[in-house]
């Protein structure tokens, strides 16, 4: 029944970052865009999205916060420094409240909230207030910002197309 307790989002489609590792080339434009958006510097060391290079298989995988509904980081924070951005659903760190205790970095099962030495606070993806710089910078469509309820749409379309091709082939036969 939990869904009934939620605020009704009048016409606002919530979006989420959607990552397709097969399209990632490892160019790190996303990491530069992220650091530039948040720190006005091109600096992967400060990026909230990281691309992992599994060189033995040739796979490259961008990885960042998935904005959990029941966010461990938010619940673990003793000073309530992590809040939900109502417009985007992002779990956002409030810098002036965060005390840098790092409990959230332990709580997060995915490692996507991290401490920043320079500021003494933690940082995590905040979806750039609804206009994620990483998705905009990605040259291959490996990172997109899509309807949160339909992150599977692209894959469904691919399979649907395959089905359609097969049935067409079936007809031809």
């Amino acid at each position, binding site marked *: 029944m939990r869904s009934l307790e939620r605020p009704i989002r009048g016409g606002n489609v919530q979006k989420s970052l959607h990552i397709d590792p097969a399209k990632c*080339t*490892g*160019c*790190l*434009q996303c990491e*530069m*865009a992220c*650091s*530039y958006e948040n*720190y*006005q*510097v*091109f*600096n*992967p*060391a*400060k990026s909230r999205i990281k691309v992992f290079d599994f*060189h*033995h*298989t*040739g*796979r*490259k995988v961008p990885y960042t916060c998935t904005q959990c509904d029941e966010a461990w980081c938010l619940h673990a924070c003793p000073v309530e420094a992590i809040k939900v951005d109502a417009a985007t659903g992002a779990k956002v760190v409030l810098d002036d409240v965060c005390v840098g205790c790092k409990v959230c970095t332990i709580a997060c099962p995915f490692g996507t909230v991290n401490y920043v030495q320079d500021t003494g606070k933690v940082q995590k993806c905040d979806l750039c207030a609804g206009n994620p710089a990483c998705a905009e*910078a990605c*040259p*291959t469509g490996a990172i997109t910002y899509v309807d949160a309820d339909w992150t599977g749409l692209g894959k469904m379309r691919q399979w649907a197309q395959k089905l359609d091709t097969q049935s067409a082939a079936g007809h031809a036969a």
Partner: protein
Amino acid sequence: MSWARKVLRVDLSKGSCSAEPLKMEWAAQYLGQRGLATRYFTAEVDPKVDPLSPANKLIYATGPLTGTMASTGGRYSVITKGPLTGAIACSNSGGYFGAELKMAGWDMIILEGKSPKPVFLLIQDDKAELLDASDLWGKTVWDLEAQLKNRFQDPQMRISGIGPAGETLCLYAAVVNDLHRAAGRSGVGAVMGSKNLKAVAVRGTRGVGNIKDPAAFMKATAAAKKVLADNAVTGQGLPKFGTQVLMNVINEIGALPTRNHRDVQFDGAKDISAEAMHAKRKTDGKPNLVTNQACFGCTIACGRISKIDETHFTVVNKPQYWGASGGLEYEAAWALGAANGVNDLEALTYANFKANEDGWDPISFGATVGAVMELYEMGVLKKEQLGTEAPFGSAKALTFFADQVGRGEGFGKELAQGSKRLTAKYGHPELSMTVKGQEFPAYDSRGIQGMGLAYATANRGACHLRGYTVASEVLGIPVKTDPHATEGKAALVKAFQDATSVFDSSGLCLFTSFAWTLQDVAPQLQAACEGDWSVDNLNVVGERIWNLEKEFNLAAGLTKKDDDLPPRLKKEPAKTGPAKGLVNGLDKMLPEYYQLRGWNAEGVPSAETRKRLGTAPLGERR
């Protein structure tokens, strides 16, 4: 600004590291990377120096756009006097290392002297120190990377270094970073080895933040990225096929040097082409190519990542070669394949893996093996001294030599000297397919006339990356010219050489020039850097860089006779294909080229040219 404005000077003899400000008055004239490092190098090093002596220096240099969001802005170059050529050497590499160095806050590293024992340079932002490398000496590039990351428990560290080939002073040893990206040519790795320097390991967390006009820069770089995406070569051809897209094209026009340039077409070209890399193997049903890969900041992503067939004779019981790694680019596929008449794609891939792992240049190696195979077929070299039968087409011989060359074992020690020294030793210097002692890359200048002039005049010896007139003569970029004509090629070569000098000095990849001209580069530089980076001025900067390199070569003792091609290309006509019957017309192009450059008939810049560009004979300026 965009420059970090800081140079790291490392005295290997004393074991000291010190920071000094970048000379901004030189940056205004020479931009960065290739140009700016050449300015430093020529001011500090005697052109007559023995390249492998402590008096030579080795400069690692980034460009102003290295480490920025400009597409392909991740390049660095290694500048030194080359042991293969005795000329200025400048080798460019991608991967992630260059950007990391810039992010640590350095434009350049000047490495001088010679360490009494093996060391590596560790840079963590401002902090730089030389550390003992006795446990790393003898290790391959791949083991070096794993050991350093493990020792410092830092998977984000970036490493550039040498393998066994650099340590054993193979004259075409490379400096390799990120496992399979290389400052590959002219033996820059041997100079590093001669200094007992194994590697430079960098972790940079400061980033690049001093862009002159950030808003204009983001706009300019976004527009330039769109040009790359919309272009058929950079948007489609290179990501899908890599530079290997050229194999069948160049073979068809009869400009694929085959069997040490005896032929200009290779019947096995299709077997070692991009298309072959995509095709499923009969043995395991998988293609050679796993995926494409980008270097730092690159929106083209032409890099090849390949996996060798685990049942192939080269890797049976050798699981260290079963993983994905840097696959064949066009030049390597040509040198390891067509140059030797070998059409075994898996054997070529294995030899390419060895080049990365042991740190040597597959172009010079493959071309040298081509000369050895010709000498073997002539009966000059015998099975007993080679350790193998070595007829043209033998994948066994190719990979046998690839196993030996890095550590200088067996005949590998002679192969490591390059084809000029090797063919001379056995009495056939005419069989060395080189200019200034450096082996040709993958374009036969009988079928692409302008490339003959580009090779003959390239300051680092035969090279396709100094004036790639293939773009115009074959691909029609920016305009189509007749590959069989010599008319107009002097001007074409000069224009390509000068523009290329700018690309190589900016931090950008030359491959962008399939789609970009200086019109696309200028707004990016102008937004990022203070100073005049208009197209007009960039043309002058490019010409200035070219002329300064030339001054170094002249002072090093090179003359007009070093701007020449081997007799085979000037006297033995192409046997087949569209260029059948043609030789290269260098003698028709060279005088006009000298004239256009403002050089005298001996290839020496005139007083007026020197005044116009602000260059001078090196003895006088120093």
